[in-house]
């Protein structure tokens, strides 16, 4: 006998992600899922964001890595609340890992939660965590053809940061072609050119974040 099921294989994850988002909404916490390949600059972006915004917003960080606490240690030195998740070989974060991490964060004292996903351009795009926005970084050495190789990641991102822009004179990265490819897949994506090393272009990222925090807070105060 055949029995129809028609159930999404990731529905269990999506359910937990919705629960996470409700909890974050209850506390008025803007949550950003930061994704990229390994070495594109996720941790540098988080450190820059903490250093620039910590006077304006209370920041929390969830660090996802296959192993080690190297990144969490760097963030901890900045004096913000951080939880390290080690996926023990897993190629992405899942919503249940975030649920556990949220139990270990002082949610009443956070305005902005940055989640650093595992470095990978494929799997993280499939798994909702409960975030409000998705930011992805692509660094110049990776090449401008990546939107066609990893279309899902670029389709899902709210903000695409082109990082290591200070290397542009040394590399053959076609910025207009990259813009065209990203906007072709994702017409509402915001594309920023930044260098987490020199700080170039990061003001646009900070002001986008501050604006989103403000919107989250006003939603939160209307609901409470």
């Amino acid at each position, binding site marked *: 006998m055949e029995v129809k099921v028609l159930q999404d*294989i990731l529905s269990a994850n999506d359910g937990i992600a919705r629960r996470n988002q409700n909890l974050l909404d209850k506390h008025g916490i803007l949550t950003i899922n930061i994704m990229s390949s390994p070495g594109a600059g996720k941790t540098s972006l988080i450190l820059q964001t903490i250093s620039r915004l910590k006077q304006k917003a209370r920041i929390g960080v969830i660090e996802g890595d296959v192993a080690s606490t190297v990144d969490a240690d760097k963030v901890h030195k900045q004096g913000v609340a951080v939880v390290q998740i080690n996926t023990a070989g897993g190629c992405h974060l899942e919503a249940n890992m975030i649920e556990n991490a949220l139990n270990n964060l002082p949610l009443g004292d956070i305005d902005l939660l940055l989640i650093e996903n595992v470095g990978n351009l494929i799997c993280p795009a499939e798994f909702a965590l409960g975030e409000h926005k998705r930011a992805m970084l692509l660094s110049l050495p990776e090449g401008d053809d990546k939107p066609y190789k990893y279309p*899902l990641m670029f389709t899902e991102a709210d903000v695409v940061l082109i990082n290591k822009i200070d290397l542009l004179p040394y590399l053959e990265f076609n910025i207009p072609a990259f813009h*065209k490819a990203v906007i072709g897949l994702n017409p509402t994506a915001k594309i920023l050119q930044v260098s987490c090393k020199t700080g170039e272009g990061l003001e646009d990222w900070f002001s986008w974040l501050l604006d989103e925090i403000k919107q989250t807070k006003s939603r939160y105060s209307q609901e409470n």
Partner: protein
Amino acid sequence: MHELSITQNILSIALEKANEVQASKVTKINLIIGELSGIVNECVEFYFDLISKDTIAAQASLSFHQPPIQLRCRSCAAVFSPNNLDWACPNCHEAKIEIISGRECYVDSIEVD
């Protein structure tokens, strides 16, 4: 790349449904997994054999239906399948596209005794 967790979900969805209809055995699971989902069928089969061993879905066969990638041009509305890395519309040559098929990832049905 994350076939183990995918396979665990497939097994639990199948067992839950089988339980609902009071089946004694799951003989087949029909899956719809699009080309863009990046899932390697052989990996799912390998894990499935391991984790289903002590359940009523042990030895169930897995059938994979893989819908191809289909794109729709946002400029001229043409629907096409991309040719390798070329995601531009073959009709109007714009690269403004939306993915309409290929992302599927669900359990379509189970066959039970």
